[in-house]
């Protein structure tokens, strides 16, 4: 019996000539928050559709809570909650009615779902607007309602497909806070384009491109494996060009990039810094600082900087 909440083995999805997923392997631990990143067309949507049983794989296998998606779709759907990219709220039903419909689709008893819906509306700050139609809600409120809907039946695994796209920073942080509060009580699988979101929320992050898994680990692990190089920012009072030429000639300097009074210097290793400091003795240096690698640096280095269609 597998212990991971989500297991994908050699998962492949072929659409005619296009391979959307190519021998994709993945394991998501119980109770963790797992982030999936990838540029447009990387295969994220296909993967999430297969994991949520909306689509069948061409080959390979997927287990959600130990159940095979090919044979136990209904059972799996009773254990998962899905927040899709689109709000998919019923605009002809009130906020509360949207949640009631979802509970009925899950075959819940009225007594059970009424209490649960009250709790969720309160928790999401929507109790006062429960009789209003979603069309009258702000984007953030609609998103909170979609999250509440996905939680009505108390799922064991929650799929969040770009949950904060289009939200203002305040609403985004409210969703983040709520997702954090769920941590541990259920497994959360999150796809996002916001790298900061993945960095803030996820225990582990996978980066995929062209249907393949290209990196997997914690934020720090991903940053660490970017490369052994170290980048420093050096700010000068004046004469940047002449100092840039001086540093460029040094063996331990890999790349150098000048902008205004600032030099970005990539060193072979941090030990080279003392050589740089010696070389700059007497130079009008205002500041030398280590430039932290961001998840975005990792993402761009792995998937390229080119815009995808």
């Amino acid at each position, binding site marked *: 019996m597998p212990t991971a909440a989500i297991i994908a083995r050699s998962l492949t999805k072929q659409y005619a000539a296009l391979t959307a997923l190519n021998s994709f392997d993945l394991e998501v631990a119980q109770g963790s928050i797992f982030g999936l990143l990838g540029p447009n067309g990387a295969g994220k949507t296909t993967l999430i559709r297969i994991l*949520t049983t909306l689509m*069948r794989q061409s080959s390979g296998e997927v287990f959600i809570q130990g159940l095979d998606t090919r044979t136990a779709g209904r*059972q799996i759907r*009773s254990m998962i909650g899905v927040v899709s990219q689109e709000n998919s709220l*019923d605009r002809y039903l009130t906020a509360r009615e949207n949640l009631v*419909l979802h509970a009925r*689709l899950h075959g819940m008893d009225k007594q059970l779902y009424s209490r649960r819906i009250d709790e969720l509306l309160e928790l999401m700050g929507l109790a006062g607007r429960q009789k209003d139609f979603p069309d009258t809600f702000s984007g953030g409120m609609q998103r909170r309602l979609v999250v509440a809907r996905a939680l009505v039946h108390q799922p064991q695994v929650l799929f969040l497909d770009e949950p904060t796209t289009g939200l203002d920073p305040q609403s985004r942080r409210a969703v983040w806070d709520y997702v954090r509060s769920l941590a541990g009580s259920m497994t959360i699988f999150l796809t996002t384009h916001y790298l900061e979101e993945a960095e803030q929320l996820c225990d582990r992050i996978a980066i995929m491109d062209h249907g393949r898994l290209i990196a997997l680990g914690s934020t720090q692990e991903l940053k660490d494996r970017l490369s052994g190089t170290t980048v420093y920012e050096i700010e000068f009072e004046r004469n940047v060009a002449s100092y840039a030429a001086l540093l460029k000639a040094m063996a331990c300097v890999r790349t150098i990039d000048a902008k205004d009074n600032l030099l970005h210097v990539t060193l072979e290793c941090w030990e080279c810094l003392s050589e740089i400091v010696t070389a700059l003795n007497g130079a009008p240096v205002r500041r030398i600082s280590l430039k932290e690698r961001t998840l975005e640096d990792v993402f761009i280095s792995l998937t390229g900087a080119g815009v995808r269609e």
Partner: protein
Amino acid sequence: MILHGSLAIWIRDMQVLRRAIFSELVAVVAYPLTIYLAFGIGMQGYIGAVEGSPYGLFIAPGLITMTAVNAAYNESVWSLWFHRRVQFTVESYRVTPISVSEIIIAKICTGFTHGIIKGCAVGLVIFAITPFRFPLEHLLSYLVFLIPGSALFSCAGVISGTVMDKPETIGKVEAVLVMPLIFMSGLFFPLSSYPAAVIPWVRALPTTALFEGARRALVSGDMSLMYVLQVSLSALVLFALAVGIFRRKMAE
């Protein structure tokens, strides 16, 4: 098959219908009533009797049937298209523990219910403002046609709403296929008006069996088993097709 999903979606649809029932009924009654006023009253003097009945009475049962099946078709086609393409609610249904068939059964039942409710509303209005009368016991025979007829058009609506991604295509299909089928089925004229060579082809249409059979059932209580079977079998075939096509579309 567990049908709690169908029931939940049907209850949702009825909730929405209940909220808008007045405006829905006004819109639904207006169209057949206008036709009745124009043809049944305006043209009656010029046309005279058709198959022994005044023209107004000849077209009245057909107008009730037309309202019912049109309502069933329109509700199914637009509801499914809207939920699939605009509101994406079908996606939200599909991630719950219900089957694709349950969604489609719900939508067919909703279309069917709309058809029956709106058909009855138009029937009552025609009954109230025209001299059209029928023995109440004929109503039962009439429902034997109206129920599978509404189901037939509801299934057709589900197929159109599943296959067509653009709203303008839905309108075109209605203009090119649905309305001609209804009008060709002897709604405004007796089948005997067709050339003899064409009559067997027209009779083979399930819509002819529906309109012709329903009229006879309501006016004279004459229930043609052949027509009932024709409508019911067509509804069953379209139901199987609707489920198959929707499942296939969802798997894409």
